């Protein structure tokens, strides 16, 4: 036999890479043959040189348009898609159930993603967002540390001048006035800012501009306000009229700026210059270092260190004021963190911060629902694919490697996920209104198609395909030709997986249900909690009145309304501290009331007596305290004793009685020590009216009295009970969210169970038939199948309850007044899921229980 010379192997390998797959056979052969011929004719060297240059020339083939032939990977993919769609169509029922389940999971997860990413997107759109900070401060004494965000007028002045690294600064503060729109006046909140504010926050003007913003009677307004006031063009003659305090002030409108986006912590409508604020306050407030009542924003130089600026601010502050024992440090909070930081808080012109718990709840629900839905899909898919083992075997006989089979099944999952994704958009549109309400957001359908729509969709597509598709594809591609052709299946491994899926799903479902029930119970507990006073049928008005004559007149007129039973006016709760004998101080709340306060709110007196309006000394030197304060002071019988309370005219007042502890604020906090007094020093602010009817006409009569007394000020009333209930809005939102989440999770878990049971039943129809022939009753068949699944479900419950117990207790610890995690909640959760899952199992077993053995036995 003739021996052949081989061309350089690297060149051959290069050729195999370069050459299109449909040409390679011909080209490789031709070049090889030509090589032999040239070797024979002109020698090795010549032939090799030629061979190499011809390999390089093969690059030209890319210019030849080739038709796709059998073994191109595209062709294979087309085949996968085709079989995928056919299979989906063939198993319409199961597929649509499966895809619907997946779509629900995706929709829930997507919505949570929209919500969470929206919460995290706050304030990031400002051009200078990375350089913007606001001043915060920390005060620490021996046993406690308080951090707060806020600053004083002088800080903005001094720090800006003296601290290196600050490029620009603006103070920011909220104000309040009555805005005249047409002939009417409306309550309107305003903002004060310094001239550099507009540059720092890249405020865009559609009309005019802020100009110098350094004269007192100018303003800029946003488009919404401009539209409300009917201002379209700015030529210098436009003015707005604001009633601030008692004076009416006119401001010249310099410009109209674009409304700030919803995901902005600052959303000013009317901006007034700080120069104006300066004219309104006493000199003292401009020079006191720790008169914290505004926010100050700094734009730092690029590269300036946050720590260095904070340090230098602290130094300046400490040089300006002596704090004694108290350790005070200034700090900076990045603008981007304001929304998510609940510790430093918002206020003073900065909008509400995110509800951390709600964000966490939504994240957990989103992730759990996606996982449950993906696991469901896996479970369904494995069962379904087992009917296709022959197809896999045939593919393998024709040369498909494991890799190709894997690819095929993953691409089938991809198809399903893609369809599910489309369906989920519909589902999202359906549940969006409800979701927006629970999340306290104004989401519209456009929100779904927002900027992150494509990214989110693509991400979900990939994640779900991997989560749901990889395992079934792995399982199915591992079958050997022989075992798949013979129709025998490997038992062990897969079953364990399917079973653990069911266990996992039910654990998650029980977690969500128990969580939901606990939150529910906690909320009801707080709503039904006896606050210690009567808030039924009490209307609250809020308006500060200073003049004693006005107070009396208003009260008398209100009492003339027949439906108004009682009226009491108070200052609202304020805080101060009491210096005790042993040089420690005690934080106490105090409130100024009138003689009717305790009797109207039905607050019981434990010791001593109520205020007596006929006793002059009660108005000047007597106080009532609550049980907590008595205990804090260590007084067994405080009545008749003096306490070291000093506020306004009150100094060392006499305790005339002790009231039973009642909740002054929400149940989130404990009952504080409280002093109740009647001194006229403090202005009254809150007016409580006890009604003896719930007829809405009474409100009109009250409003008439209001109009007569307080003229243009808008009339705002609330029912005290509503105010109290609104404090638990967050809990109510979490409850609603978790309720929906739990419901969806249970439905999805049952879908999964249905899949597993259904597949088991279908596979064992012959066995069941034989059992029936031998004489098994339907009940026995039911027991045969359900026992093993009930076992799984119960295992899932146990795991779920243990996990829940841990998490829920953590959550409950945040409440001062809380319920205990009780086993009856767990019991109810288990019972609900058990019943639902039993119903699911039976629905699938129905077929097996009543089948006619002939149908399934005649085949062989």
């Amino acid at each position, binding site marked *: *036999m*003739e021996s*052949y010379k081989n061309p350089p192997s690297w060149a051959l390998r290069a050729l195999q890479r370069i050459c299109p797959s449909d*040409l390679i*056979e*011909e*080209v*490789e*052969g*031709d*070049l*090889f*043959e*030509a090589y*032999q*011929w040239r070797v024979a004719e002109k020698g090795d060297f010549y032939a090799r040189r*030629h061979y190499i*240059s*011809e390999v390089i*020339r*093969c690059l*030209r*083939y890319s*210019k*030849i348009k080739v038709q796709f032939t059998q073994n191109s990977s595209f062709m294979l993919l087309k085949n996968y898609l085709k079989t995928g769609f056919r299979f989906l169509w063939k198993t319409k029922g199961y597929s649509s159930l499966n895809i619907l389940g997946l779509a629900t999971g995706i929709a829930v997860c997507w919505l949570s993603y929209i919500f969470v990413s929206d919460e995290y997107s706050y304030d990031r759109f400002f051009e200078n967002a990375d350089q913007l900070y606001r001043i915060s401060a920390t005060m620490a004494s021996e046993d406690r540390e308080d951090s707060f965000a806020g600053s004083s007028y002088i800080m903005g002045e001094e720090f800006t001048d003296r601290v290196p690294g600050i490029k620009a600064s603006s103070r920011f503060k909220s104000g309040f006035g009555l805005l005249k729109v047409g002939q009417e006046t409306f309550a309107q909140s305003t903002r004060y800012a310094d001239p550099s504010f507009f540059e720092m926050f890249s405020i865009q003007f559609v009309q005019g501009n802020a100009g110098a913003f350094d004269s007192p009677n100018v303003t800029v307004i946003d488009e919404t306000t401009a539209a409300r006031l009917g201002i379209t063009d700015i030529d210098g003659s436009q003015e707005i009229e604001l009633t601030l305090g008692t004076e009416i002030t006119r401001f010249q409108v310099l410009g109209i700026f674009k409304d700030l986006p919803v995901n902005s912590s600052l959303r000013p409508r009317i901006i007034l210059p700080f120069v104006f604020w300066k004219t309104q306050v006493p000199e003292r407030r401009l020079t006191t270092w720790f008169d914290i009542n505004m926010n100050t924003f700094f734009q730092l130089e690029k590269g300036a260190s946050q720590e260095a600026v904070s340090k230098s601010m602290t130094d300046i502050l400490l040089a300006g004021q002596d704090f004694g024992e108290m350790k005070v440090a200034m700090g900076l909070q990045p603008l981007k963190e304001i929304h998510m930081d609940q510790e430093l808080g918002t206020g003073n012109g900065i909008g509400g911060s995110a509800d951390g718990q709600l964000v966490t709840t939504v994240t957990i629900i989103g992730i759990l629902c996606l996982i449950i839905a993906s696991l469901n899909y896996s479970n369904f898919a494995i069962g379904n694919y087992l009917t296709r083992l022959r197809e896999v075997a045939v593919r393998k006989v024709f040369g498909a490697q494991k890799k190709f089979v894997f690819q095929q099944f993953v691409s089938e999952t991809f198809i399903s996920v893609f369809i599910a994704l489309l369906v989920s958009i519909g589902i999202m549109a359906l549940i969006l209104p409800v979701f927006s309400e629970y999340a306290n957001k104004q989401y519209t359908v456009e929100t779904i198609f927002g900027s992150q729509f494509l990214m989110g969709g693509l991400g979900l597509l990939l994640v779900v395909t991997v989560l749901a598709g990889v395992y079934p594809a792995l399982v199915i591609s591992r079958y050997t030709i022989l075992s798949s052709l013979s129709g025998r299946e490997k038992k062990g491994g897969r079953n364990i997986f399917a079973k653990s899926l069911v266990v996992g799903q039910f654990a998650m479902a029980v977690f969500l249900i128990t969580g939901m029930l606990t939150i529910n119970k906690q909320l009801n507990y707080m709503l039904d909690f006896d606050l210690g006073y009567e808030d039924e049928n009490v209307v609250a008005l809020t308006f500060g009145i200073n003049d004693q004559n006005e107070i009396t007149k208003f009260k008398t007129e209100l009492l003339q309304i027949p439906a108004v039973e009682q009226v009491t006016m108070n200052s609202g709760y304020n805080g101060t501290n009491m210096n005790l004998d042993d040089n420690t101080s005690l934080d106490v709340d105090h409130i100024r009331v009138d003689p009717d306060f305790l009797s109207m709110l039905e607050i019981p007196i434990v010791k001593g007596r109520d205020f007596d309006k006929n006793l002059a000394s009660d108005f000047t030197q007597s106080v009532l305290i609550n049980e907590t304060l008595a205990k804090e002071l260590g007084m067994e019988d405080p009545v008749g004793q003096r306490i070291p309370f000093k506020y306004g005219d009150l100094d060392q007042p006499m305790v005339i009685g002790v009231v039973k502890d009642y909740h002054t604020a929400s149940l989130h906090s404990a009952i504080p020590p409280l002093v109740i007094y009647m001194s006229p020093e403090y202005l009254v602010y809150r007016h409580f009216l006890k009604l003896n009817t719930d007829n809405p006409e009474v409100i009109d009569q009250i409003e008439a009295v209001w109009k007569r007394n307080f003229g243009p000020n808008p009339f705002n009333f609330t029912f005290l009970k509503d105010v109290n209930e609104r404090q638990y809005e967050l809990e109510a939102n979490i409850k609603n969210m978790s309720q929906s989440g739990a419901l969806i999770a249970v439905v999805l878990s049952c879908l999964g169970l249905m899949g597993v049971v259904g597949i088991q039943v279908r596979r064992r129809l012959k066995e069941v038939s034989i059992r029936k022939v031998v004489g098994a009753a339907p009940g026995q068949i039911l027991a045969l199948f359900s026992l093993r699944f009930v076992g799984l479900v119960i295992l899932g419950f146990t795991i779920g309850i243990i996990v829940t117990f841990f998490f829920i207790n953590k959550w409950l610890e945040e409440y001062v007044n809380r319920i205990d995690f009780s086993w009856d909640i767990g019991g109810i959760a288990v019972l609900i899921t058990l019943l639902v899952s039993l119903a699911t199992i039976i629905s699938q077993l129905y077929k097996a229980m009543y089948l006619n053995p002939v149908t399934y036995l005649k085949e062989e």
Partner: protein
Amino acid sequence: MGDFSIGSLEETVLIILLMREESHAVEVAKVYEKHFAQTISIPAIHVVLKRLEKKGLVKSFMGEPTPERGGKRKKIYQGTPSGYRLVSEIQERRQQMWSEVPKPSFNYGIV
């Protein structure tokens, strides 16, 4: 010249194919080198063959693997009737034109 324009290398390769019943790329190269006394690269011939095939002037089929090709199958090309007609038409027209060139020509110094 029919519906197709055809380049001179394409014409040459087509004529080589028409010389015998069937041939593959290497044989085309051998014949070419014999007649023109210059080398030609195999990929160049491949590109030409594919073009001709697309124009319907040649057809091809896969042959059997042989050891001198390193165990690869060869792709065998044949001229088609339309290929034959096209080439003969071109040759006829050339012949026609050539006959009108005066011989011997004094202009080109050939007597």
